[in-house]
């Protein structure tokens, strides 16, 4: 394997790992809120966050440019204050992966948390445990298989993210070319051998993680 392949491999892992950490930190609390709370706009929030799962990645990418581009409603402030834009950096690849993989965490997590018997939660409350303690010691442990499955699926999806990444981070060799993007470049330039290696690697990794997700989502109790 030459250096550019190793770079893509390392970058892909880096992007997928950071995106997955963000998904756990942000997605899990959102899944909890959707599963256990009633508030106005709840289903609308679910739909907005799930859209990237079904929209063409280019559409998601387009929205991300509207948000994070130099003139975007968020990106504008970065550009004004720091003279810096997130576009065409590896951070942009993280954002794209995060947004596209988040629905898998939210869908799987919400279903897992909703399946926890509400009597068990009530029992914890009557035994004097706060909602926070109950979440940590009862709800989350009982939903842990579904939550783990959600994390694994999100990671796998983040690793394979292509379309939105291309729109927001571009395909800059040695800078933002994650494996899916590198495969695109290699096969476009006729370097079938290198491309095939990466294709095989991504396929095996994805299959392995799907196997893990299936194992986790089987319930013990």
């Amino acid at each position, binding site marked *: 394997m030459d250096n550019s392949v190793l770079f893509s491999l390392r970058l892909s892992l880096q992007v997928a790992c950071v995106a997955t950490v963000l998904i756990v930190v942000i997605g899990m609390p959102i899944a909890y809120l959707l599963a256990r709370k009633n508030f106005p706009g709840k289903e609308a929030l679910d739909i907005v966050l799930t859209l990237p799962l079904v929209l063409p990645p280019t559409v998601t990418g387009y929205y991300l440019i509207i948000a994070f581009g130099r003139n975007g409603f968020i990106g504008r402030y970065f550009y004004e204050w720091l003279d810096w834009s997130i576009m065409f950096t590896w951070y942009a690849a993280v954002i794209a992966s995060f947004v596209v993989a988040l629905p898998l965490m939210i869908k799987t997590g919400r279903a897992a948390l909703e399946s926890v*018997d509400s009597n068990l939660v*009530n*029992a914890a*409350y*009557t*035994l004097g*445990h706060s909602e926070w303690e109950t979440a940590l010691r*009862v709800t989350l442990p009982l939903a842990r298989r579904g939550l783990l499955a959600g994390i694994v699926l999100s990671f796998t999806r983040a690793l394979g993210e292509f379309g939105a990444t291309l729109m927001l981070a571009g395909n800059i060799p040695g800078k933002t070319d994650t494996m899916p993007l590198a495969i695109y470049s290699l096969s476009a330039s006729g370097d079938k051998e290198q491309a095939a290696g990466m294709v095989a690697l991504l396929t095996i990794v994805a299959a392995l993680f799907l196997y893990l997700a299936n194992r986790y989502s089987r319930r013990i109790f």
Partner: protein
Amino acid sequence: MGLSVCVKKRLKGFSLDVSWEIGDELAVLFGFSGSGKSLTLQLIAGLMKPDSGAIKANGSTYFDSERHINMSPQKRSLGYVFQDLALFPHMTVRQNILFGAKGVAQHEKTERYRELMEAFHVSSIENRRPSEISGGQKQRVAFARALMRRPDVLLLDEPFSALDAPLRIEMREFLKELRSNFQVPVVLVTHDAVEAASLADSIIVYSEGAVVQGGAVTKVFGNPADERVRRLLAGQENIFQSICKQL
């Protein structure tokens, strides 16, 4: 000391409007399914909020709509044994019982745990999960967990309904024995007339979200107040006569 409940709660297609008061005794809420018995327990426990009224237990006000008091379920000192027992499947028996010791000082916790384990004969299964123990053992664990905090009130929502007959009789004896050690108001919800008659100090008869009769067991069973109560007891007269004679 005691428990007083005076609440109104309107739900879709059902409304509850009850008022009763008990001392340190075992009171049975008796009536058909869907008459509002379990709902009353949930209101007492703070798992649902009454539309109006007041709930007081052992001198502390759990709920009072006029004074805008609504204590959280965590702060209400009560032991609740759920119909399905609600043991935590991912915890061992020991962990389940100790989960009920929130706010109990460490040294007291260990001592109380030992006492309950012995009293309830569950020492031999302390490292098992709920899925690995029998129905009767599960009951004992649920009771032990509910009693760890020495609650002011004990709420029992048809705790024996899932058991077969011999075990149910055994658990009734167990509950009688328990009551001699823990003298707090106990509210037992049941639609089993025999259970009501054999355990209750007093009985509160529910029908369609209202109390239709209340008082001592002999009084209620011996002399149903109206046609509704009579209907509830229909076909059970012989049982009551024999029980009443024993009493």
